[in-house]
């Protein structure tokens, strides 16, 4: 009646330091199971690593020398291939805390000493049945449509290959069916499936022996194979592109990412992340369908990962500093405001340019925390200047387009400013058109609220991207900041003509204008003649740390 034995022989591993206890379990179990014995957790782990999935269940003692039961549970929890093996802890202690600790650490059940054979066999039998039933789902290794490994099994197999063959060079190639979603939406999922299986079929036809093929996501097919000449891949890629032309589905497009001679220190999933990232890099480059992950990109990605890894601590440890760049008022020839700019000096990476870390913070969503941090710092500084009786000037800081996704952005800014009792007219907020382009509703909503609260809104980088004159009237902007690209080409007549119009529009809409990136006398003069109110740039001052800025302020 205990027999779960339906022709297959199941193996139970007994991990227990005392020989008598082991022998008793062996005597109980061996009529029905193959029993393996280990005298401590370490010996048990060694057996598991050599036999892996072939073990159906583990009976584990807790108090053992070398590696005890808790340590064993912890070791198992870090090995995904072992997680599905049920573990029954054998216990003679009446300590419920021990038992709870075991359950928390991944044990499935308990049996108490003294062993009652009926109970041991029933519990072992039902645990094995249960785990086998649930693993039927896990055992689906292949993607139905393509016959390729599914994501998890692809990763597991590649990881195994890398680990078992440390001296073999491998390549990864990933084919991304860029237009799959669009095709599914337009022509139906059947057409999408047709495309996927067509491409998978042609990949299968051209992959070398021993290659591992996987379908990572709906649209990503990936091949892991022994390193070959680059020409091979190019031919391969060419072939697939030719095939794409003959696909049964219209509008198919395909990108290929290559990573040759992958390192053995990375996991399959991070290797694939790298390949998918290079594909993203060329996504919008017309005509570029093949991208290669190379050493340079590897270094860049490592640095990016380091930056992302450091950012939260950097905020806690106040590694971010706020600098102030004066905005010079032409009509009074004096300082008329300042822009707060964040600077980051990391203890090991050194100075990191905002141009480098801000896009990463935006991608990770961390940027808004930094925005609030800057807000806090700026308000604290303004408070100290007010208290010291320095000239009152408005100070601006930048809001990321991502900040507009934060629920209650305007309220949070209002809270910070009020906390330091700063008059609202001293606070300017710099926003970019991209925020409007991405989330018009949230943007307009927040801008409206911020203006109602008495804050001033500056439109940053105007003229740098696809600026639209319509935006000027739509956006409820108080100040227009001309991108530094205007200052660079100020001698061009056409440029001047455009600028004159911008000034005229700004004037008519009641906006003042700040010209950025101004470095020379003649640039100042040209802007002055156009009726520009404020100049920001190295001509007057570079961004200054707080103490130096204070000297500038009282000069």
């Amino acid at each position, binding site marked *: 009646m205990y027999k779960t034995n339906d022709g297959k022989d199941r193996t139970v591993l007994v991990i227990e330091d005392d*020989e*008598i206890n082991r022998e008793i379990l062996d*005597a109980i179990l061996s009529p029905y199971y193959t029993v393996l014995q280990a005298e401590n957790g370490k010996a048990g782990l060694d057996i598991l690593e050599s036999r892996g999935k072939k073990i159906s269940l583990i009976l584990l003692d807790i*108090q053992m020398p070398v590696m005890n039961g808790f340590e064993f549970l912890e070791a198992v929890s870090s090995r995904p291939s072992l997680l599905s093996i049920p573990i029954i802890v054998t216990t003679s*202690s009446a300590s419920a805390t021990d038992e709870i600790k075991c359950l928390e650490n991944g044990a499935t059940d308990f049996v108490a000493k003294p*062993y*009652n054979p009926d109970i041991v066999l029933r519990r072992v039998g039902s645990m094995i049945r249960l785990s086998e039933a649930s693993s039927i789902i896990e055992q689906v290794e292949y993607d139905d449509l393509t016959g390729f490994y599914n994501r998890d099994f692809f990763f597991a197999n590649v990881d195994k290959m890398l680990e078992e063959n440390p001296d073999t060079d491998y390549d990864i190639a990933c084919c991304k069916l860029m237009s799959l979603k669009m095709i599914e939406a337009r022509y139906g999922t059947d057409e999408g499936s047709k495309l996927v299986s067509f491409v998978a079929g042609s990949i299968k036809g051209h992959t070398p022996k021993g290659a591992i093929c996987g379908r990572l996501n709906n649209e990503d097919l990936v091949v892991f194979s022994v390193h070959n000449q680059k020409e091979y891949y190019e031919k391969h890629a060419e072939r697939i592109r030719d095939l794409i032309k003959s696909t049964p589905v219209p509008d198919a497009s395909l990108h290929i990412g290559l990573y040759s001679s992958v390192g053995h220190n990375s996991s399959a999933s991070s290797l694939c992340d790298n390949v998918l990232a290079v594909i993203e890099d060329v996504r919008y480059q017309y005509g570029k369908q093949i991208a290669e992950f190379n050493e340079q990109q590897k270094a860049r990605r490592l640095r990016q990962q380091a930056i992302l890894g450091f950012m939260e601590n950097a905020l806690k440890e106040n590694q971010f500093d706020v600098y102030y760049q004066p905005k010079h008022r032409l009509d009074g020839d004096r300082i008329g405001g300042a822009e707060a700019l964040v600077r980051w000096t990391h203890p090991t990476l050194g100075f990191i340019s905002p141009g480098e870390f801000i896009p990463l913070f935006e991608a990770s969503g961390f940027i808004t925390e930094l925005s609030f941090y800057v807000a806090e710092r700026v308000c604290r500084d303004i408070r100290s200047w007010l208290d010291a009786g320095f000239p009152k000037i408005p100070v601006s800081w930048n809001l990321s387009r991502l900040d507009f996704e934060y629920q209650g952005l305007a309220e949070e800014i209002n809270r910070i400013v009020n906390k330091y009792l700063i008059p609202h007219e001293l606070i300017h907020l710099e926003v970019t058109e991209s925020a409007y382009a991405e989330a018009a509703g949230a943007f307009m909503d927040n801008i409206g609220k911020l203006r109602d609260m008495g804050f001033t809104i500056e439109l940053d980088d105007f003229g740098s991207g696809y600026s639209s004159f319509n935006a000027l009237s739509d956006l409820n902007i108080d100040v227009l900041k001309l991108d530094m690209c205007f200052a660079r080409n100020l001698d061009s007549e056409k440029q001047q003509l455009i600028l004159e119009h911008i000034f005229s529009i700004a004037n008519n809409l009641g906006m003042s204008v700040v010209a950025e990136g101004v470095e020379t006398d003649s640039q100042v003069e040209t802007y002055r003649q156009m009726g520009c109110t404020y100049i920001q740039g190295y001509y007057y001052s570079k961004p200054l740390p707080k103490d130096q800025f204070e000297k500038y302020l009282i000069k």
Partner: protein
Amino acid sequence: MTIQEFYERIGGDYNDAINRFRKDTLIQRFVQMFTKDPNFAELTEALKNDDVSTAFRNAHTLKGVAANLSFAKLQSSASEMTEYLRAKQLEDAKAYYPALEADYNLVVNALTEFQNAQ
């Protein structure tokens, strides 16, 4: 001496053993292994060295073995020893040691007699 008599001598619970193992031969097989069980000797050594954590592990294992063999008296004294050591009360454990030793010797002596009688 029968196996039943052996259990009576040592304050063991033969009924529990036979209920669980069903056969005298099986009980005898396990019981005879007990002379080779290192836990008591290791516990003695660990107590001498004031090594509380090793002593705890040995006492705990001894308690489990005694429970499995239905050596009720030894199980209860091993259990008491385990609790002193779990609480890291080394002096109490040492003071209690002679009682545990007496129960252990009772088992080992009876076992030798039993084996000689076979």
